[in-house]
């Protein structure tokens, strides 16, 4: 790594050539995913094993190891991709390492057992980009995660990193930068969907100095982790975007707000900021342009509501993260009541490519109102879970079936929940909906930050609404009455319905409270909190009615409303249920299937019998 500070664009170009000249594209390189997801699978041990094995086999000079951030295909982690052939091995553990080094790295042989097998066709796939999960994506923003060691700025520079900054600082005026972003029609990808260029312009034109720019990495939706993975895997793309934005807006001080629960993101961002400073991308007179700008990292204490702009600025001011009541935008009066531009991680990461390749390139994909791509975290009852980046306007069906590989165990799709806890549940009849900001809002859901939770036929939609409301009850800041009291009461009613105490009028009361939350809550947490309820009532009203009128849970989820029974015709008397029942509620004589029964007074409906039965002899009614 260089020790010199880059003082001009030509210094940067020289360095880039120097880095590239040292890199041989034909040299073998093993890329190991080490995002938080793969780390949970033990990828750090795999990395150590590779280092050891390569040393042992004396391959250190012939093979590079690159430890990267998240590749996205978390379902199959830890992932190892060997370049230049792009051989992708999935679910790699430490025992596989010596085989990979001796057979693939040394002999060029492919190890069949580690390849991805398409569950639908049975075909084994060698190249990562040929795997259906990746093939149908458009990885403009997320794709570089595969090519970068986030702890090494030179990997980013090698991929044209910071060239957009050079273009902005030396070829464009701040107004031209804003115009480019406006022309691209980039919209806030944290969920708000507000046009980014207009927000920048408002902050630039707002009276008051200094002006601040902020990266919002307070991602808190259950099951969503795209911002974390970008921040962990490619922090410089976000930092470069932020510097360009600061130049356009006229700000000299920026903050990256990362939640403390993202330790790897905090670590990699801290390292990236230090390196950017050492190389001269931050600080005084950046690359000799005369523009000064620096960034501090702020570690948030993780509350969902802190991601709201006025709550987030409160936290930066050292106060409790509660939204402020205001009819003046943060862009005009934000942090310390100064003009403040806040965008989320993914929005900032889109800025460098827009400046480099132009607004027309950016807007060449997408729908009329939503341009470019969006990263979703595809989770739930879908075969291929992970992070997916798709063009705006791709249909839900293409995402869930094309990329996600359909529903686990071939079950029936029931709903997909988009937009995080205060998003809505979208039914099968709307699977061909093109996913963009406006279409999702039209059906009662929202883009949110990009969570996408797939649910199958075994999901109870009333219970889903209850779950999301219980999350929101925990995360409401408690300041305004509609949100604090309204969510509490809606959760009470939903709990009553799922536990068999639902009564006539409950649905209407839920709708009535919902309307007031939408109209009168202080911040978006409250105004969007009714979405899970209203969409499930709208699309799955029959399930509510079954719970309320007939005290039945059609999906067999709500414990108070179901019974486990032995199907005497199927039962073989294997006794597994009897052995495993924690309450000794099941009796029967071994090998005499017809004698088995469950004592309902003892049964706690834990479902163990159903899970252990190999003969489909336990049913839920």
């Amino acid at each position, binding site marked *: 790594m260089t020790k010199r500070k880059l003082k001009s664009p030509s210094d940067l170009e020289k360095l880039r050539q120097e880095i590239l000249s040292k890199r041989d594209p034909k040299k073998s390189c093993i890329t190991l995913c080490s995002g938080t997801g793969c780390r949970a699978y033990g990828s750090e041990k795999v990395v150590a094993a590779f280092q050891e094995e390569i040393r042992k086999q004396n391959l250190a000079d012939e093979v590079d190891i690159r430890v990267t951030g998240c590749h996205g295909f978390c379902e199959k982690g830890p992932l190892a991709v060997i370049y230049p052939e792009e051989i992708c091995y999935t679910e790699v553990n430490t025992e596989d390492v010596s085989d990979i080094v001796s057979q693939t790295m040394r002999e060029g042989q492919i190890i069949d057992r580690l390849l991805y097998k398409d569950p639908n066709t049975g075909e084994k796939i060698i190249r990562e980009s040929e795997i259906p999960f990746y093939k149908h994506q458009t990885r403009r923003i997320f794709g570089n995660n595969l090519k970068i060691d986030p702890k090494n700025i030179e990997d980013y520079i090698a991929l044209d990193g910071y060239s957009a900054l050079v273009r902005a600082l030396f070829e464009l005026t701040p107004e031209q930068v804003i115009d480019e972003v406006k022309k691209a029609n980039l919209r806030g990808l944290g969920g708000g969907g507000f046009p980014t260029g207009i927000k920048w312009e408002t902050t630039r034109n707002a009276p008051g100095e200094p002006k601040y720019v902020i990266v919002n990495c307070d991602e808190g939706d259950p099951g969503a982790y795209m911002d974390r993975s970008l921040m962990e895997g490619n922090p410089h793309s976000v930092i470069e975007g932020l510097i360009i934005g600061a130049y356009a807006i006229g700000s000299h001080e920026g903050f990256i707000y990362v939640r403390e629960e993202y330790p790897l993101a905090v670590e990699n961002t801290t390292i990236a900021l230090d390196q950017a400073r050492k190389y001269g991308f931050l600080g005084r007179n950046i690359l000799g342009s005369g523009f000064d700008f620096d960034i501090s990292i702020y570690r948030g204490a993780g509350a969902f509501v802190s991601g709201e702009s006025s709550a987030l600025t409160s936290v930066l001011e050292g106060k409790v993260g509660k939204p402020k009541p205001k009819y003046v935008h943060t862009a005009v009066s934000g942090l310390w009541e100064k003009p403040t531009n806040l965008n989320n991680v993914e929005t900032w990461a889109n800025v460098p490519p827009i400046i480099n390749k132009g607004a027309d390139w950016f807007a060449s994909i997408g729908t009329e109102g939503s341009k470019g791509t969006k990263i979703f975290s595809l989770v739930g009852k879908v075969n291929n879970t992970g992070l997916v980046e798709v063009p705006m306007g791709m249909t839900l069906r293409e995402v869930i079936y094309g990329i996600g590989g359909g529903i686990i165990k071939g079950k029936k799709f029931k709903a997909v929940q988009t937009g995080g806890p205060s998003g809505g549940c979208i039914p099968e009849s709307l699977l061909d909906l093109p996913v963009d900001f406006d279409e999702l809002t039209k059906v009662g859901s929202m883009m949110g930050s990009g969570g996408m939770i797939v649910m199958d036929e075994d999901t109870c939609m009333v219970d889903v609404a209850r779950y999301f409301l219980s999350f929101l009850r925990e995360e409401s800041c*408690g300041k305004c*009455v509609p949100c604090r*009291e309204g969510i509490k009461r809606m959760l009470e009613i939903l709990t009553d319905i799922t536990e068999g105490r639902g009564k006539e009028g409950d649905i209407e009361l839920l709708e009535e409270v919902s309307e007031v939350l939408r109209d009168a809550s202080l911040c978006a947490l409250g105004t969007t909190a009714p979405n899970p309820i209203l969409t499930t009532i709208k699309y799955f009203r029959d399930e509510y009615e079954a719970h309320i009128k007939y005290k039945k849970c059609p999906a067999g989820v709500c414990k108070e409303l179901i019974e486990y029974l032995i199907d005497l015709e199927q039962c073989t008397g294997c006794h597994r249920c009897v052995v495993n029942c924690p309450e000794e509620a099941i009796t029967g004589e071994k090998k005499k299937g017809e004698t088995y029964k469950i004592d309902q007074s003892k049964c706690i409906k834990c479902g163990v019998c159903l899970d252990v039965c190999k003969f489909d002899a336990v049913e839920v009614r």
Partner: protein
Amino acid sequence: MIVMPEIVIDGRRIEVDEGTTILNAAKELGVHIPTLCYHESQEPYAACRLCTVEIERNGRSKMVTACNYPLTEEIEVKTNSEKVRRTRKMIVELLLASCPNVKIIRDLAKEMGIEEPRFKKEDNDCILCGLCVRTCSDIVGVEAISFVGRGVDSEVDTPFRVASDACICCGCCAYICPTGAIEIEEKDGVREIKKLHASQPLERCKVCGNYFAPKVQIDWMAKQLNQPRENFMVCPTCKP
């Protein structure tokens, strides 16, 4: 600066300084908008949402809180539309379920025709309007109390729920509380605010000899104003 955008409240035109809130403009017209968390001594907090009104701007209707919405442009305000009444009624019903025995809430409920809340009744007396907390920090300036706990389960209390060294037992919190959730007791020369773990001996008036203010409060005032303690030893009744 005096500007004259067309501002209409409930069908009546009014001219106000730019930035005047809807609540204050309505007050000038004699239009009553109910509030709970608002007090003229303090910045609007906009938490109870009881002052929600409907505005129409550029042909679009929106619900806003009157206490902090600044009037800057042509606008029509409806303080008593059906939607406004429905919203306020639900807010009061929610509060009534939480605090069924608080007078100000019961009165509001009665006014709006709510007999019984449709939600399970609790027995709270605090509506978390924050007036006590804000008074303690912004008006008195001692910051002895704050919200403790998290979100829906927040309560007003001292740090760690023990007697606070910062508290001067002045009683402003109790004075400003709209629901009577904070009570002051005075007995045998001692002032007690049980809810906030405060108990302080009182000073006697130099003239009439009656107890009138906590000794710590007099110490604090003398220190704040850099004057001898002696200057604060006369009760308000005896003060010339």
